C-alpha cells in the first residue's frame, strides 16, 4: 500500500468530475468518480483504524464496515456508510446489463462519504477516555 490520498481530496476530484461538463471526460465520469469516491470511503476507514491503532486494513471490507458500527458513535451514519460502500462497489464492478450510476445517485453516495470523512477527521473522534 503506497501513498494514501487524503479522503477529502479524492472526494473533491470525484465531485469535480461530476459537476464540470468536459468533453474529455464525457461518459466516463460516472464510473471514474465512483472509483474515486469508493477509494475515499475506504481511505477514511483506514484513517480511523490507524488512529485507534487497530490493524483492520487486511480484513475484508465487510468486516471493517461491521466494526465501524462499534467504533463510530453514530450507528445511522455507519449504516449509511455501509450502504454507500456496497452501492459504490457495485458501480465499480461490471454487472450484466447494468449501466453506470446517475449523477443523482452519485451525489447521494458522495454526501455519505463526505460526512464519514469529516467525522473521521475530527479531533472529537478520538475515543473517550477509558474506551480504548
Amino acid at each position: 500500500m503506497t501513498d494514501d490520498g487524503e479522503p477529502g481530496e479524492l472526494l473533491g476530484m470525484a465531485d469535480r468530475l461530476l459537476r464540470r461538463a468536459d468533453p474529455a471526460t464525457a461518459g466516463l465520469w460516472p464510473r471514474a468518480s465512483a472509483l474515486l469516491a469508493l477509494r475515499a470511503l475506504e481511505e477514511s476507514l483506514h484513517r480511523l483504524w490507524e488512529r485507534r491503532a487497530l490493524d483492520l486494513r487486511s480484513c475484508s471490507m465487510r468486516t471493517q464496515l461491521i466494526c465501524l458500527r462499534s467504533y463510530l458513535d453514530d450507528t445511522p451514519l455507519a449504516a449509511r456508510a455501509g450502504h454507500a460502500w456496497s452501492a459504490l462497489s457495485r458501480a465499480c464492478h461490471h454487472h450484466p446489463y447494468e449501466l453506470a450510476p446517475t449523477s443523482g445517485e452519485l451525489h447521494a453516495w458522495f454526501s455519505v462519504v463526505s460526512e464519514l470523512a469529516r467525522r473521521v477527521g475530527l479531533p472529537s473522534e478520538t475515543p473517550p477516555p477509558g474506551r480504548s
Partner: protein
Amino acid sequence: MSRLEADGSVEERWGGLVLAALEGPAALEAQLSGADATPREAGVRPSPARLGAFIQSIAVEGFRGIGPRQALELRPGPGLTLVVGRNGSGKSSLAEGLEVLLTGDSLRWKERASVWREGWRNLHHPRASLRATFLVEGERGPCVVSRLWEDEAPFEAGVASAQVHDEAPSALESLGWAAALRTHRPFLSYNELGSLLDEGPSKLYDALSSILGLEDLVEALGVLQEARRSREKALKEATDARERLVERLRGVDDPRAQRVVAAASGKEWDLDAVDAALGGPASAGAGTAEIDALRGIAGLEPPDPARVGAAVAEMRGAGVAVAAARETAAARSRDAAAILEGALQFHAAHGDGDCPVCGRKGALDGAWSQRQKAAAARLREAAMEADAVHRRAEAARRLWEGLVPLRADSIVRAAEAGLDLGALVKSLGSWVEAGSIADLGALADHVESTSGPLRDAMVRLRDAARSELGRREDAWRPAAVEVAAWLKSAREAVRGGTDLKGLKPAEAWLKKAAAGIRDDRFAPIAEKAAGIWEHLRQQSHVELGKIQLTGEGTRRRVALDVTVDGVEGAALGVMSQGELHSLALSLFVPRATLPESPFRFIVIDDPVQSMDPARVDGLARVLESASADRQVVVFTHDDRLPEAVRRLDVAAEIVEVTRRDASVVELRRALDPVGRYLEDALAVAGTADLPSSAAARVVPGLCRLGLEAACMEVVRRRRLGRGEPHAEVERALSGAGRLPRLAALAIFDDVERGGDVVSRLQSEAGPSLADAFRQCDEGGRDVQPAAALDLVRQASKLTAWVRGLS
C-alpha cells in the same frame, strides 16, 4: 367504390344511399328526400406527403431533461441505432422531443396530470427549441423541421415550421405527415404499448384499423347508422306515443276519438283518416250517429204552452159545436143523406130488387135510383152545415198530434247516446193515450193535463243532451291537440319508415364490404405480427394464432387467437406483462413499417422493460429484420438489448446518453462494454485534466471493469451457445462474485478454480498479463502515474486474450 360497382348495385336505390353516405350526412339526407345530391365538392387536397423520410439528427434544447442544446446524430438510412441511458439521463427527452416536434404533443403526457405537461421546460435552460433534420427520398437536400418557443412561452405556443432544402420555410403541415403520424405512428413507447392492450379490445381495434384506411367507410357506415337510428327512433317513439294516445282516446267520449283509435290501431296507420277526424266535421264518417242523435235531441222544441192552450180551446169549441149540430135539421138531412147514399150504393152493386130495410117487393129499380139520387143531393146540400161542424171536430181531434214533433227513431238513438229517457217515455205514454179518446172535451182535458209533464220531460232531456254535447266537446278538444301532435310525428316516422327500406340494405352492404376490405388489408399485417411474435415469444407457452379485426360499432375488437399450453381460447389475462408488451410490439411494428407510411424510421422507447433476457434476444432479431429497410431507433434504459445485439452480432450503432449536473446531457458512440472501459481508462491515464494521483487510482478500477465485462462476454457466449437457458447463465454470472472467480468461470468454466487463474495466465498468456490481472484484481492499490498507461495496454491485451477463449 369499385366493390359497389362490381356488385352492380349502384342502380339500386340503396346503392345511391351508400354513395351519398360516403359524402356525409347532409348528402345522405338530400338523397333520401329525393333532392339531387349536391355535387361532390372538390375538397382542398392536402399537398402530397413527403415520402420516405429518414432522420439525420434530432436536436433538443431546454426541453424536459435536456438543458443546453444536445443533438443526436443518426445515420440517415436503414439500420439499427440503440440509444442507451439510465432513467433520467435524458434519452426519453430525445424520444419525446421528436414526437412533440412532429405532433405538437406527446401521447405519454395525455394520460398524466397537467403538472407533467407543465414541466416540459428544462429548469436549467431558458431557451427551448426542438429541431430535427430528415432526409426525404427524392428531395435534393435535407428537410429541417423545427419547433421554437419564445422565452416563457407556454407549451402550446411553440411555432412549428418545415423547410425542405432550398424551398421557403412553410408550416409543418405542408409536409403532409399529419394523418400518417396518427395512422402509422412511428413512435412506440413502453407506456403506450402497455396501455394499448390495457385499454380494451375496441381501442386496440381503433389503433389498428386506422392504418387500413377504412375511415371513409367507417364514417359512411356511421352516417347510415345514424340515419337509420334516428328513423327507427322516430318510428318507435311514434309507436309508443300511439299506444299512449289510444289509451288516452279510449277514455274520451267522442266519436272522433274513436275514429282516431280505429285509424291508428291497424298495422298500417290510416293517417289521412286521423287527419280527417281532426279537421273534418263531426258528422262525417262512422261513430257520429250518437252526436247526431244528441244534436237532434238538443234541438227539440217542447210543446209550446200557447199552442197547447189554443188547441185545447179549439177542441172544446169543436166539441160544443158537434153537440149543438146533432139536434138540427141539417143533422137529420146529413144522416138521411148518409142512409140514402148507402142504399144507392147497394142498388148500384146488386141491381134491382126488394128493399133491404122494409122488404117491399121490387122497391129498388132504375126509377127509384133516379129519384133517390136527386133526393140525396138535396139532403147533402141541406147537411152541409152539419158536415162543416164534423170536419172541424175531426181537425180539432188531430190538433194534439202536431203539438209534439217527436220521431221515434231519434228517441231510440237518444237512448243509445246514453240519455235517461224514463220520464219522457212515461209522460209520452200518457200523452199518446189521446189517440183513443173520442170525446173532444175529454181529449181537451187530457191534452191539457198531460202536456205539462211531457213538456217538462222534453226540456230536461234537451238540456241533458246539450250538456252531454258540451262535455264531449270539452273532452275532445285537448285530445285533438295531442292527436295533431302525434299525427305530425307519425307522418315523419312513416316517411322515415320508407327510408329505412333503403337504408337497411345500404348499411348491411357497406358493413359487409368494409369487413371484406378490412380483412384483405389486415391480412399482411397479421401475418407480419405473427412472425414477430414467433421471435418474441421465445419460451412463452402462449401461441398466437390468427389475429383478426372483427365486429363493428361497439362490438368491434381485435380477436387474438391465443393458445396457452395447447388450450385454445385463452384470454389476454393469462399473459405476463412482458408477453403483453411483446404482443403489442408484434402488432405495432408492422403498422409503423407499412410501405405506405411516409416515414422510413421508427422510434421505440424502452421496449425491453419487463422482458426477460431470452425475449430480449428475440427483440434484437426483430429489430434487426426491421432495420433491413427501416431506420430503427431504440431508446433503452439498461444494457440488456445492447448486450444481445453485440452477442448476436446484429449490426447496430449504440449511443450512450449520460446526464451530468445542470441537465448537461452527453451523447457518445459506444463500443462494447469492454472496449468502452478500456477506452475510459486510457482517457483517464492520458488526460491532462485529471491530477495524476486521481488517474492512478481510477485506472486499475476501470481496467478491472473491462476485464470483468470480457469474462462475462465469454461465459455468456459459450453457455448460451451450448443451449443453456438464459436465466441459468445469468444466475451463474451474477453469483460468481469477484474477478478471480469470474475469470475462473471464463477460463476453466468452473467458478471454484479462482486460485488457478494467475498460474494459468502465466503459462498461457505470459507473466506481464498475469501481473496486469493481479493489479486489476487488487483494484484498491494505486499504480504509479507513469505505469497507468502501461497498465491499460496490458489490460487491453489481457481482455483480448480472454475474449479469444472459446
